[in-house]
């Protein structure tokens, strides 16, 4: 199925979880925050949250800023 991650459309396995997506993207260990279809998904729920086709995922982290 296709989902959108940070604005890019990517192909992933059907029924993939958010946790699996993060692992696949090498972000499993990084401090990130996730928004799924404009709703925050708390870190504790990443592993169990299932993705669906056309989901919009935003993955953010902290960078330098003023």
């Amino acid at each position, binding site marked *: 199925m296709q989902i959108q991650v940070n604005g890019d459309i990517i192909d992933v396995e059907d029924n993939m979880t958010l946790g699996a997506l993060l692992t696949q993207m090498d972000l499993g260990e990084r*401090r990130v925050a996730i928004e799924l279809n404009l709703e925050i998904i708390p870190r504790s729920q990443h592993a169990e949250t299932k993705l669906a086709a056309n989901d919009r995922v935003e993955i*953010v982290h902290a960078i330098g800023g003023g």
Partner: protein
Amino acid sequence: MAEQQNDSLVIAGTTYNSRLLVGTGKYKDMEETRLAIEASGAEIVTLAVRRTNIGQNPDEPNLLDVISPEKYTILPNTAGCYDAPDAVRTCKLARELLDGHDLVKLEVLGDQKTLYPNIVETLKAAEELVKDNFKVMVYTNDDPIVAKQLEEMGCVAVMPLGSLIGSGLGILNPHNIRIIMENANVPILVDAGVGTPSDAAFAMEMGCEGVLMNTAIAAAQNPILMASAMKKAIEAGREGYLAGRMPKKAYASASSPMEGLIVG
């Protein structure tokens, strides 16, 4: 000196010893960021929230490892947001990123050339964030009416600009900042525009509760030395304010006594 020991900045019930708040943008690398922040003595440090680049090097140092939330009060900002919904989304993401930490710097911008605050959107975002239990430190223009409205909405600190973000032009309208301070029951901090230690000291001498800066340190030839200079300027300005300046006079007033003069 006893008074100074009790002279702390209180924001949303938390006490800080440093009145200098610093950003983490525009530094050469993480090490320079770390050293400059350390030299500044700042306890409240701002950062930005951005999309994680897909495929980026996972070994790259993370800002939160360098500026640790255990050591500093992290103040995530909404810089780069041009409307209230984006600013609110950014704050919610930041709260998740920082495990429920709810102190944020709200900044909703008007255009890219001036980075001047969009007040209509700032007010909308502030209202929504306060309702959602965020502690909002808000970047605004130097309009006393707007500053008061933001305070009345429940913002925990109001931060008028000294001049445009990153301009280094100093405090261009001290009269308005004074009016804002006179009316305020929450801390007023100058955010943006400070270019030199004397600008920072000037803001503090006026009675501002603190100064937030980034470019004045990061864009200096030697950012670490400038961070140390800013720390001293903020302290000097604050002590000067507390000490109370001498009255200005139109004519001279001799400092040495006339009595016992050998002339005449």
